[in-house]
C-alpha cells in the first residue's frame, strides 16, 4: 500500500481537485483506493456526495476508539472508498498531541488497511502543524500543487527543507504547477522553467479551467464527469507521473475481479 498526500502550506491551490481526480483515476485503473478527506472544510466529501460526519469525530479515530475501517464509505465509483471529513478534524492537532508517538500516529492508523487498499490518498488541510507532520511521516509521495508565483516556489523550498530534516523514512516530493493561467507572463515563465530546473516538479501543469471549478456543481471528479475534457487529460498525465514516482505497479493481486454486471470504473 502506498500513501500519497496532496499537501501545501497554502490554501486554495488545487489540492482537493488533484486528490479527488488522482484517487478516481487510480481506482479506474484497478487500484483499490481510499481517499481520506482530512480537511474539516470537507470539500472532497462534498464532491463525492458523502456526508462529512464520522461517528465519535476525529478524537475517536485518533485515539483508536473507533477503527478507521468502520468510518469508511464507498463512493459511487468502483474500487474507490472515502474516509469522510468531520468538522471536529479542526482539533486533530490536539488529539494527536495526546498520543504516545504524536508525529507518526496517522501512519499507525493506516497500517491495518494494508491488505485492503493499494493506495491511500490524503487530502490535507492547508497548514504547517502536527497534522501536517503526521502526513509527511505517513506519505510515500507528497503531491504539492504550486501556483506559478515566486512565493509559491519559496513554499516548496520550505517543505523540501522540512522533510529533509526527518530521520528515517522521508516522502518523495512531486510538485506540480496548478491553476496555471497562460495569459499571465509570470505563470508562463515559471511553468516553463521550473520543471526543467527541478526534478521534483512534474512536467504536467494543471491549468485554471472552468471544468475543474464546475466539479463542485457536478459533484464528481472531472475525470469521471467529463473524461474527454482537457482537464481530465491533464489530471491523467499528472496521475501517470505520480504513479511512476510512487512506484505503483498493478499486479495480478491488485487487479480486481468485478462482479458480473458491475462496470470496472463506475457503478452502474
Amino acid at each position: 500500500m502506498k500513501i500519497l498526500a496532496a499537501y501545501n502550506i497554502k490554501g486554495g491551490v488545487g489540492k482537493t481537485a488533484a486528490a479527488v481526480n488522482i484517487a478516481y483515476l487510480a481506482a479506474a485503473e484497478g487500484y483499490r483506493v481510499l481517499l481520506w478527506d482530512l480537511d474539516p472544510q470537507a470539500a472532497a466529501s462534498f464532491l463525492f456526495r458523502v456526508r462529512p460526519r464520522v461517528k465519535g469525530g476525529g478524537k475517536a479515530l485518533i485515539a483508536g476508539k473507533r477503527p478507521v475501517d468502520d468510518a469508511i464509505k464507498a463512493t459511487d465509483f468502483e474500487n474507490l472508498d472515502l474516509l469522510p471529513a468531520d468538522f471536529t478534524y479542526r482539533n486533530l492537532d490536539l488529539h494527536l498531541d495526546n498520543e504516545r508517538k504524536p508525529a507518526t500516529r496517522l501512519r499507525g492508523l493506516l497500517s491495518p488497511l494494508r491488505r485492503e487498499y493499494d493506495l491511500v490518498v490524503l487530502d490535507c488541510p492547508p497548514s504547517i502543524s502536527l497534522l501536517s507532520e503526521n502526513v509527511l511521516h505517513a506519505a510515500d509521495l507528497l503531491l504539492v500543487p504550486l501556483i506559478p508565483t515566486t512565493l509559491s516556489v519559496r513554499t516548496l523550498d520550505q517543505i523540501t527543507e522540512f522533510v529533509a530534516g526527518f530521520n528515517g523514512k522521508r516522502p518523495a516530493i512531486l510538485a506540480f504547477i496548478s491553476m496555471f493561467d497562460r495569459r499571465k507572463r509570470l505563470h508562463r515563465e515559471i511553468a516553463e522553467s521550473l520543471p526543467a530546473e527541478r526534478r521534483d516538479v512534474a512536467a504536467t501543469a494543471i491549468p485554471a479551467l472552468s471544468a475543474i471549478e464546475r466539479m463542485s456543481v457536478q459533484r464528481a471528479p472531472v475525470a469521471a464527469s467529463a473524461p474527454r475534457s482537457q482537464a481530465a487529460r491533464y489530471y491523467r498525465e499528472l496521475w501517470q507521473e505520480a504513479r511512476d514516482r510512487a512506484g505503483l505497479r498493478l499486479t495480478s493481486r491488485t487487479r480486481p475481479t468485478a462482479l458480473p454486471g458491475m462496470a470496472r470504473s463506475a457503478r452502474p
Partner: protein
Amino acid sequence: MLNAVREFVLLPADDTRPPGDELPEITDSRYSVAASGRSRTVRRTWLDTFDWRLFRAGLNLEQASGPGSSELMLTARDGELIAASALTPGAGPIRWPALVDALPLGPLREHLAGIVGVRALLPVVRATSVRTEQRALNADAKTIAILTAERMTITQPRRAATPSRIAVSALRGYQAQASKLAEAIGQAPGIAAAERSAFESALRAAGQKPGAYTSKIDVQLTADMTAALAVCTVLARLFDTAQANVPGTIRDVDSEFLHDLRIAIRRTRSVLKLAGSVLPASMVGRYRPEFKWLGDLTTPTRDLDVYLLGYPEMANKLVGAIEPELRPFHDYLSRQREASQRQLARGLRSARFNQLADRWRHDLEEVTASPGRRPATGRFAAGRIARAHQRVLQGGSAIEATSPPQALHDLRKSCKELRYMLEVFASLHDPAEQWRAVNELKALQDCLGEFQDTEVQRTELRAFAGQMVADRSAPAETILAMGEIAAELAARQRAARTEFAGRFADFASPRGQARIVALTRTAA
C-alpha cells in the same frame, strides 16, 4: 464493496413485466432509483462434486460468464464471498467436469482443494439470467445500494423458469440506509422476501436434490423384519450405489467413481457370502461368480489409480534419486491405466453387465415380494456379526511374529467382513455404540491394510520394473529410483507388522470385545 442486504422474489401474478422493469415503485420519499441500467445476460453454472462435498461443507461454487468475462465464485450459504477467481479468456474455457488442478492458481483453488480432494467438479445446474442493475440513491443523490433484478431460466438438467428476483446490496458504510430501503421495497405489492437463495431456487426448479448421493448404506432396517427382506433391501441399495457410479466410471470423470463402485461390489459379495443363507441358494450360486467377475474387472484400474494418486508423495520421499528420474515410471503407469480403463469401460458397457443388472434387480424384487417369515433380522444380524467377530478373534490370536504374510492377509479379509456386517446392519444399532465399535475395528484394519497394500505394491513394483526393462521403456536411473520406492514400501511394511500386535491387543481386549457384544445384544 457490496454487502447483500435482502433478496426478494416477484409473486407469480406480478412476474410478467419485461426484463429491466421488474422493480416495484419505491414509496419512501427518502430514496429514489437512478435511470434504468443496461440489462445483460449472464450464464450461471453451479458446480459441486458427485457426492456434494461443497454443499455438505455449506459452500456454493458458481461460474458466472458474461460477454467477454467469466468468473468463479465460492460463497458461503448466506452469500458471503469467500474467494473469487477471474477466468482469463486467453487460458481457454474450463471444460466441466474438471479436477481442481484445472482451475487457476490462487486462494479459490487452495480453498477448494482441501474440500474437494480428488473429486471432479461437475455442473449441478446451469441457468441463463438476464440481470439489470440500478443504483438506489439517498436524498443527497449518493448511491447507497445496488438493486439487481434477475430473471433466471434453468437450462440444465431440464428447462424451467424461476421467479424473478430483486437483490438489494448495500455499498460500504450505507448498510443502515440500504436496510430501510429494503424494508420499503418489501412493502410494495406483488413482492415477497426470498425464502431461498438463487442456487436453492435453481436446484428446486431443476428437480435436483442436494446431498442425495451417498456411498453409505442408508437403509432403515428393523429387528423384527424378515432377514431375507432386510438383506434384499441392503443389496438393492448397494446396487443403486454401484449403478450411480457406472456412468462416471465409464467416462473416467474422477477416480472416486470407480472407488465407490468397487466398494459397493465388495459389500455385495460379502453380503452374499455371509448373509446369503436367507436367499434362495440358486440365486446366491448364480450371482456370486458374476459379482466376482465384476470385482475383478475393476481391480487393475483401481490398483493403478492408487499408484498414480500416491505418486507425488512417493516422489517426495526419494532420497538419492530425483523426481524426473522416476517420471518414466509415472508415464508407464499412466499408459497401463489408459489400457485398463478401456477394458473396464468395455466391461461395464457389455451385455454381460447389462444382463447382470437387469436380472439382479428382477430377482431381488422377487424375493422382496415373498421374503418368507424367518429368521428375524435382529437375531440373524446378531448371529452373523458374532460369527464374523469370532473369526477375527481366532485369526488374530493365531498370528505370531513368525507368521507368514498370508495369515495377516486372511485376517484382513475377516476384518473386512466384520466391518461390512456392522455397516449393513448399522440401522439396528445404537449409533454411539456402533461408532465406537467401528472405530476400533478401523484402527486394526488400517494397520492390516498398510501391511497388505505395501506387500502387494512391492510385488507389483517388481513386476513393473521387470516389464519396463523388457520393454526398454525406462533408463537405469528410473529402475534405481523405483528401488528406493521398494525400500520405502518395505520399511512401511515392517512398521505396520510391528504395530499389529498392539492394535490387535486393543481390539481383542475385554473392553473391545464388549463393544461388539453390546451391539449384537441390542440388535437381537
